[in-house]
């Protein structure tokens, strides 16, 4: 299971720093329990909300990147729902998007390398799966 998710949640602004850390630790512990791995945790800090959420105008944003299956996300969201200080959360699946971005990046790098060194077959051979017609150039060598 290699689905990647981004879980962003907002915590009420009057929460203490260590309580927030405890909450994040609880969530991180729940991830491997349901078969997944935590990629990164990013505390984005206090931010003014664009609209009032549960009578709060500010909130602490936290971004959690995890890898795992749907059951893991279900469990994490369940926990976030019952946690009182969390006022909003959103899960976004990012593995498809990441795949697309990587593909574009690889294509761009290949094009760049090819235009930089037209007589070098080595970098061209690396990006074998590139469908661009430029691949035929090293083959002609």
């Amino acid at each position: 299971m290699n689905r990647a998710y981004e879980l962003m949640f907002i915590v009420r602004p009057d929460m203490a720093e260590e309580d927030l850390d405890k909450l994040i630790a609880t969530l991180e512990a729940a991830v491997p329990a349901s078969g997944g791995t935590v990629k990164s945790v990013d505390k984005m800090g206090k931010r003014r909300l664009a609209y009032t959420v549960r009578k709060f105008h500010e909130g602490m944003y936290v971004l959690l990147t995890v890898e795992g299956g749907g059951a893991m996300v279900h469990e994490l969201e369940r926990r976030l729902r019952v946690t009182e200080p969390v006022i909003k959360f959103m899960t976004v699946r990012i593995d498809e998007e990441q795949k697309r971005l990587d593909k574009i990046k690889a294509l761009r790098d290949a094009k760049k390398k090819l235009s930089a060194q037209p007589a070098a077959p080595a970098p061209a051979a690396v990006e074998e799966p590139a469908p661009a017609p430029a691949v035929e150039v090293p083959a002609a060598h």
Partner: protein
Amino acid sequence: MTDETRVPAPASDAPREAHAPRPSGDRPSGDRPSGGGDRPRYGGGGRGPGGPPREGGGGRKFFRRKKVCKFCTEKIENINYKDYRMLGQFVAESGKIVPRRLTGVCSPHQHRLSNAIKQARNIALLPFAGRAS
């Protein structure tokens, strides 16, 4: 009063249609009872800036400027809900998503942009309505 102007129209359909002449294709809409009210919609309206084929290069009043897609020119591929500052450029003062005929964004990028803005709205990074703080 509008019906009276409609009668001589089939004889000369050039003044009615601002775009390519379609005498036969026009008939079904002419039969509709509400044809009197929404007739002007065919002219200029939303298709003007799109580049009418008959105006060519001289039609200044249709071509505002050749707007290019910001994402295509700067090769930005990662349109994320997280960078609300960039997304905020495509959002009006009222919080509405600006149509692409005004911003010049190309269609696939506009879809992604629109999705990103909606995600950002859900997580309170952008407002649904009102001024973006």
